[in-house]
């Protein structure tokens, strides 16, 4: 009983504090042109009630987290048979994993024919972000280098297609590999000066690099048409045929879907290759890995280059999908969005990136009803996610090498 009173008291104090805190911005609304002041006292009451309730939950959740309990126990809502099922282990079982994957693949293939053009277009965007996420994941998740300038490579890809088409009439299928390779070269270009930098210094230089690219695109009128951008970029053609808009939308969806599978395939193979293990070793301890024979310079450069490769490819798709590019599409926000996908989904995990991209892209789309509030909610979700589940939705399972102890001891007794 005493405890409950104490909790209420704490919530009351928090609520009073928030009422004080939000007072000038929530309550007073000034119009500086006509010099009118509106007092919106009702807002204060909302803030008070809302923060009172939220602070109660907040403290409860923090306590649960400290105790190490599950924050929300979903198994309560499941039938008893499923309750003790470990999802990860079940999926690792090939017998179950295969049909599940095939069903997902079929669903993805059928989706554009069932859903409308609008839905297909949104889903294409989500697929594009999956590729971006997987690409950036090479640099951040595997290489452990905080990269805040990913949008620059995305821009390089998009502008490659836009400018090559405008000046030389080059088509989508030629631009796709060209954009990717050009972005890769840019990745190396950025890689060289930052080889010596670590952590936050690296973050700010990559950010600066992206801003330089964007500002140059914005101001170099002869080259990139400045802030007004380049319009009338053709959608991809089907063996030289121009497709009507609904078919073209489905076509782009299919191309992106195919590229998603290609990316997943390549990234998976990379992860388990010598290079992938070198990236992870470098992330854990650069000096130790160097002394074990990992060449840090080339390892870092390949991480940057291969990360940029995917961004360039998606850039070309972006240009083809929207038929218009301008520098405003490649701001820091875009880099941060991709970063959020990785962190939300679970760093280093491929499944995590896919889930993260779907949430980050689709959630705001379907929250359009609250479109005014969606960025606000988005920020709040990021903070809550980090506070209560910092390792992301799907945590990466690290490779484990197990040694059978009984075998070792029996080996010893034989001598």
């Amino acid at each position: 009983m005493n405890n409950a009173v104490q909790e209420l008291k704490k919530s009351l104090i928090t609520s009073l504090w928030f009422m004080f805190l939000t007072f000038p911005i929530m309550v007073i609304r000034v119009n500086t042109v006509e010099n009118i002041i509106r007092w919106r006292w009702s807002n204060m009451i909302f803030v008070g009630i809302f923060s009172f309730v939220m602070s109660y939950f907040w403290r409860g959740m923090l306590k649960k987290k400290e105790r190490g309990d599950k924050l929300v126990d979903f198994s309560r809502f499941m039938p008893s048979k499923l309750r003790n099922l470990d999802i990860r282990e079940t999926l690792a079982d090939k017998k179950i994993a295969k049909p599940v994957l095939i069903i997902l693949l079929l669903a993805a293939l059928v989706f554009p024919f069932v859903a409308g053009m609008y839905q297909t277009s949104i889903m294409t965007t989500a697929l594009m972000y999956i590729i971006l996420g997987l690409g950036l994941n090479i640099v951040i998740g595997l290489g452990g280098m905080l990269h805040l300038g990913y949008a620059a490579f995305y821009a390089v890809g998009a502008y490659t297609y836009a400018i090559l088409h405008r000046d030389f009439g080059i088509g989508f299928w030629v631009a796709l590999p060209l954009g990717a390779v050009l972005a890769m070269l840019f990745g190396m270009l950025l890689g060289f000066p930052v080889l010596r930098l670590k952590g936050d210094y690296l973050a700010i230089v990559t950010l600066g690099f992206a801003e330089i690219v964007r500002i140059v695109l914005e101001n170099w009128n002869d080259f990139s048409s400045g802030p007004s951008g380049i319009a009338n970029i053709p959608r991809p053609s089907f063996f030289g045929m121009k497709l009507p808009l609904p078919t073209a939308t489905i076509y782009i969806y299919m191309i992106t879907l195919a590229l998603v599978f290609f990316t997943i395939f390549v990234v998976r193979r990379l992860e388990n290759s010598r290079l992938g293990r070198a990236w992870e070793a470098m992330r854990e301890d650069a000096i130790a890995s160097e002394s074990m024979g990992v060449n840090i310079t080339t390892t870092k450069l390949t991480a940057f280059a291969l990360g940029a490769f995917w961004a360039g490819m998606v850039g070309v798709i972006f240009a083809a999908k929207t038929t218009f590019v301008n520098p405003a599409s490649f701001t820091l926000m875009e880099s941060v969005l991709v970063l959020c996908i990785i962190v939300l989904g679970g760093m280093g995990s491929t499944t995590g990136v896919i889930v993260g991209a779907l949430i980050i892209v689709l959630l705001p789309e379907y929250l359009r009803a609250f479109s005014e509030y969606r960025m606000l909610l988005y920020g709040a979700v990021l903070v809550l996610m980090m506070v209560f589940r910092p390792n992301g939705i799907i945590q990466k399972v690290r490779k484990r090498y197990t040694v059978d102890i009984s075998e070792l001891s029996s080996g010893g007794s034989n001598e």
Partner: protein
Amino acid sequence: MNLEYLIQLTLSGMTRGSIYALIALGYTMVYGIIQLINFAHGEIYMIGAFTALIIATVLNMTGMPGVAVFIIAMIIAVVYSSAYGVTMESMAYKPVRRAQRLSALISAIGMSFFLQNYVLLAQTSDFLSFPKLIPRFAFLEGSRNFLTSTQVVIFAVTAVVMVGLTFLIKFTKIGKAMRATAQDKTMALLVGININQVIAVTFLIGSAMAAVGGVLISSHVGQINFYIGFLAGIKAFVAAVLGGIGSIPGAVLGSFVLGLTESFGAGYISSDYEDVFAFIILVLILIFRPAGLLGRAQSDKI
């Protein structure tokens, strides 16, 4: 390329530098203590400017003299910004202090979105004009062409804040505790320093300085909107890194280098590429001094 133009550019560079310094100090102090890039620091600056604008507009209608309004608005802005800073720390950063560093950064980015959109929704997306509060000083009549009274106020206030901060860090008990915490958190805890309190105070001081910067630059530029914190925050962060993040004199030096570079670059080369100069000088300095101008290069223990 006459002399007057040069002086004018230098002064405007110094003005920018002063404002960057006020914000960059908050970044660098927070970084020095908990190694976090407080991405939402620019938003605290924006909230300071907004609070001052609201209070000043309300007070202006009562017919108070401009200087009094300015001082009261400034004090209230400082109080509110500090309150926001401390609340933000306890909500978004304290619970992730032990998690990996990237989580804290994402949490900060989330906080930045949240605060931006909070002001956007509660106020407006339009630019609001900031009331003219600083009167024209009589002694500046002769040099009016290149030095405004707002600039004089900016220089004076920045200087006072810097001296105050130096005094606080060097000679007070809390300053000593802050330096100890920055050096070694565990050891500081062992000798009886209340780390949570020190971190809260750091956020408080940093936010207060950001608010001062916000009010000053708003009265200089004359208009604000919810987005001003973003670019200012990034620039100040660049300044802090330029000087060597974690170092207080470094942040001030970096800010002035950045302010002057931008001012001269815009004045003599092209104003379109103003932001590019900031980032180019950053990249150049970091290539030759990877830990910033005054930062100490850390050697790794093996």
